[in-house]
């Protein structure tokens, strides 16, 4: 998938995907495939925020503030995570961010 502007995209967690946080891991279940996926704590927090606000940029800013890291670096990591989740059907594109 071409995702040069993924940082500006609006994403959402599909209806067929559920996830919950464990101690230091988030388990994501794709109900369509029956496959479980594991995310580390930071990636799980990113998915949680993405599920709440849908904006990659807003999520990157929030995660950068929470973890005290540069926004650019977090954005790059988040885009990579989103690309991976999109490929697995664990995220879907909701539309372009006009802002």
């Amino acid at each position, binding site marked *: 998938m071409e995702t040069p502007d993924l940082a500006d995209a609006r994403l959402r967690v599909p*209806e*067929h995907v*559920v*996830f*919950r*946080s*464990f*101690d*230091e*891991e988030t*388990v994501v*279940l794709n*109900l369509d495939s029956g496959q*479980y996926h*594991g995310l580390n704590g930071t990636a799980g927090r990113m998915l949680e925020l993405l599920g709440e606000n849908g904006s990659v940029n807003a999520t990157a800013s929030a995660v950068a503030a929470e973890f005290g890291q540069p926004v650019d670096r977090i954005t790059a990591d988040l885009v990579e995570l989103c690309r991976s989740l999109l490929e697995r059907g664990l995220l879907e594109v909701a539309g372009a961010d006009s802002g």
Partner: protein
Amino acid sequence: MSRARGQAFGVGLDADFAVPGLLDLPAPPAGHASLRLAALDDVVAAWPEGAHVLAGERVHGGRTLGWWERHTEAGYLIGGPGYGTFAVTADGATVACAPDEGLPEWKWQRLLIGQVLPLLAVLHGHEVFHAAVLEQDGRAVALTGTSGAGKSTLAAELVGQGWRYVADDVLAVRPPGVDAQPGLALTSLRLDAVADGAAGSDGADGTEIGRDDVDGARLLVDLCPTPTPLAAVFVLHRDPAVAGTVVEHQHPVDPRLLLAAGYNFVVPDRERWLRQLDVCSAIATTVPVHTVTIGAHARPADSAAALLDALR
């Protein structure tokens, strides 16, 4: 005609047949279900065509059926060769039970208790795991692990040391808590364990209600009658290379340890799967979870002592 009323795995049950081990329990159940005896022909005639076959294949009266089927409106059809066939309504309110001909109650009810009642528990808002659950002093421990890992042997050993069963093979949890719901006052032991008095069977061998070479001996046992908070989960596996028994506290808990113990995955709705993750997450974050590696020559009494050390 015999009847039975009681509660198991958090569901109130009313049966038009005897159910050994079914007790009337004090805590209010999460839901109710009626269990009715029926002829297999009638169960099959009432079951719609076009259900989703989940497992196996068999022929009855010229019609091909699965051993497990799911139908959006009709519910679930569950069969087990050598036991019987059960039709469960989608809301978990009614079960038509068609035992295979000539079987004693204890025999065909093994499938009822091992698969059908846990399915009812799931349909009534619980999550279920394969585990022996035992109680002492108001706290419960769950012993889970793959088949042959030693759950029943260790459970019998603990019973011999004064613990009581909450359920011999099913951990049923009603979220948001992590209390183990009582099952039936029954357990099973291998015939060799009964014969040689091994595996602490002296503590677990109440009244024997039946036996055969396939299922071993079926025994009535003392049951903890109230939902009991989980104090620990022990995930058992065998390793012949290990000397004795090794108990290791898991932190953080690998979610797969708990997810792998779940079963009755035939209920496909989103709410159920969220509940499964919620319960596993709640256990992982609030209940100590230990792996237990049992060596080839480990004695049950020593394994039990290792568990109780970890519990302290």
